[in-house]
């Protein structure tokens, strides 16, 4: 079915609260999904893949700080979706960059990582240059680099595969964020490794996608929509005779 941006954001917000998110997290998560979908970056598909995990997560568990100094923070997200509780980790990096000019933040053990792009857009609008980097453990290995220029609402994105990489036993389930107050950190395709450019999306590409989504609406499959609606319905209070009078409407409108 076709849905509007506001509709997707609205149902997402209610569904996430229905799942147990705090209000602020629900607002952010819904915005991340809708933002990604509107820009052609697969927000709905990512949510569909992650919804089963989200339902099983403990939403009261926040990322914990593993290490920090003035410029560098490492947080453990406890294998949770980035939708649930990662925004404060990102905000910590933002606060450090504001204070020190540049910060590096690593969020370990998280999934649904692609959706973080929707939140980083907020930081860029606040005037921060942001680069996010992570690897996906596909075969071949892929790297994704997202770069927001300060003040720009959309990023440039590079996704490429690496044919030859050294052995690495670390699991690829983290994100590295670099933020700088005053210098651009845009992705640039240079590497000593052999790489294949799988995808490169410019700001213009993403803005075109958004304009099209606003005109044509966005596709959401019926099953996901039904699931979100059921989750949102958890916020509704069963009607009783007493509650019907709680709306305060008149008794007859046939006058």
């Amino acid at each position, binding site marked *: *079915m*076709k*849905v*509007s*941006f*506001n*509709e997707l954001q*609205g149902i997402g917000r209610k569904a996430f609260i229905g799942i147990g998110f*705090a*209000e*602020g*997290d629900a*607002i952010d998560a819904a915005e991340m999904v809708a933002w990604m979908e509107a820009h052609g970056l697969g927000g709905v598909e990512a949510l569909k893949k992650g919804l089963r995990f989200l339902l099983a997560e403990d939403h009261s568990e*926040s990322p914990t*700080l593993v290490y920090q100094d003035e410029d560098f923070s490492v947080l453990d997200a406890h294998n949770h979706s980035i939708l649930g*509780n990662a*925004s*404060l980790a990102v*905000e*910590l990096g*933002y*606060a450090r960059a*504001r*204070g020190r000019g540049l910060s590096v933040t690593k969020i370990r053990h998280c999934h649904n990582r692609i959706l973080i792009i929707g939140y980083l857009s*907020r930081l860029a*609008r*606040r005037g921060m240059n942001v680069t996010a980097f992570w690897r996906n453990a596909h075969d071949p290995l892929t790297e994704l680099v997202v770069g927001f220029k300060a003040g720009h609402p959309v990023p440039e994105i590079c996704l490429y595969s690496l044919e030859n990489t050294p052995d690495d036993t670390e699991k690829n389930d983290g994100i590295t964020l670099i933020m700088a107050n005053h210098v651009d950190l845009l992705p640039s395709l240079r590497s000593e490794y052999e790489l294949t450019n799988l995808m490169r999306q410019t700001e213009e590409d993403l803005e075109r996608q958004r304009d099209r989504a*606003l*005109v*044509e*609406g966005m596709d959401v499959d019926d099953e996901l929509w039904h699931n979100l609606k059921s989750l949102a*319905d*958890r*916020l*509704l*209070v*069963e*009607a*009783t005779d*007493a*509650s*019907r009078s*709680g*709306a*305060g*409407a*008149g008794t007859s*409108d*046939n*006058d």
Partner: protein
Amino acid sequence: MATPLDAQPELQLRPANQVMNLVRLGSLHASRLSFCRSLVRQMAREDWTVTTARFDLDVDGHGVVIYRLNTPHHIYHGVVFSQHLDPERRSDRVIAEAWDVTFALVEGEVEDSLLEQMAANVPLQEAGRQHPRLLVLSRANKSLRNFAHFVDALADGKQPDPAWLTKVGYLYRTTAVYGNGKFGIADYARLQNNPDFNRPFSAQMFAVYLLRHFSVQQVEHLARNRSPERAVGLHPALQRYLGIGNSTGLGMAPFLINHPQLIQQWVYCRERALAYARQQVPDDASRRELLALLKRARQHFAETVTEDAEQTRRNEATVVSIDAVIGWLERTPATSTLWNDLLGWAEGQCSLEAQELINTLLIELYPELIDSVEDELGCEEILELQPEMRAATLKQDIETRFAWALEYDPKNPDHQHWFWYRSAEKEEPRLGVRALEPGSEKEMPLAIGPRIHRTHQLLDAFLDRSPRGSVVEFLMAHPRQKECVRRIQTMAATPYGEIQANLWHRDMKPMHLLRTKLSFFGASRFDPKSDRWVRVTMFQGAPLFCELFSDHGTDKARLAELDDWSFPVEPELNLS
């Protein structure tokens, strides 16, 4: 973009604790900055034209009518579906499933395929899937008594009695007017670069105005069908005096609370306009102009009929106050401090409704600069965190900018008497008594005051442990406070976004919230059906489509004449 008002030196704005008091907000009136007035000015200034593209109504007035709107920039169509409705299905509540008319405003042409899709979905409203080229989706029910009286009179070759419209000022009342992506229609973001409808709610207001036109055409059609030989058209003065009703309830409240930045813009624009007007040096002509406006408003309120005892008392108090204001103004010469003297005097002598009426009418006197702020009524809405801020600064901001919220007492049951929730019945917003009714664990978080109070308490404890801690550190310890904190940080920079009331409090009157929003829309004739349900009239007195012509805004005198329709009074028909 800077407007001429920005260039005015040091406007003396009223303090937020006065302006954002809920009882005062609940005393506001439609003003020249209200969305109805603003839209009509725009239509007249730009010579918008509406033609009937299709008029397929049967002898009972049921069928399809399509109107074509041409603006200088685009083409739109209004599509109205009219059907028979059994009386037992007629309800103004959101839980209704059928209506007398359903309608939509469409961007661009209405091809056969689109019309077919609309015919299958628009009459279903929320239960349908709407097309993304629809800008507005709405429905309305008949005022049965007025409708029958109007058709009977016109079919009999007579004009309906104007007193009927004074009592109930419309043939149809809308029960919801949806925009911004609801049920698949276009997002508001799509209109943000469209000069026709980029102001808040302007597309919705146009759809309502179009329904008014339809209502006239429909009763004339029914009268002609009933009595082709004798039927007459509706007198132009009555067409003007005819508005469109709106029936609304608690659904207004979540919008006001969930859009604080927009509310800030609406109130800020109005307050700047008022501050500018107060600053002008009156002369005898402006004093007499204000007197004339007061006399018309007096008649409007004296004529206004409502069965609600409290609103009747308020209307009567307003009339008494206006009499006193007129007396004061007639005996006071136009000195340079006249306006401030008047407002100072009124504060001690007049009801809140009358005080706000004077403010509303003062704004009428200086249209040239005041109208320029109407392009600032919208804004980008995003609440932003400032994670680097010291937690101590946040606490200080709460104490200085949100002192009203700290009056909440969590130990006092009266302070948490109500809870707001959505019912499983079509998500209708309702109000429940916390101690008596189930569902408070699912309440909507609309009571901002108690939430700020809670944040303040947690900050206090956090600062004991971490006196130099930052906001993000506070939030990592209390992540559920994120939304409240970014709201505080964002809104602390503005004076007027937050309604300064505890929406849980036993003494809180939901009607004030409804009236706040409706006054910005441009509603009049407040007719409460309970303490949380109200019928109002919109566009009563507004010029008709056929009158909207000002030679593209160059005929200033005509524009001013077309714009002068606030506080309409019962017309005297010259039937000779």
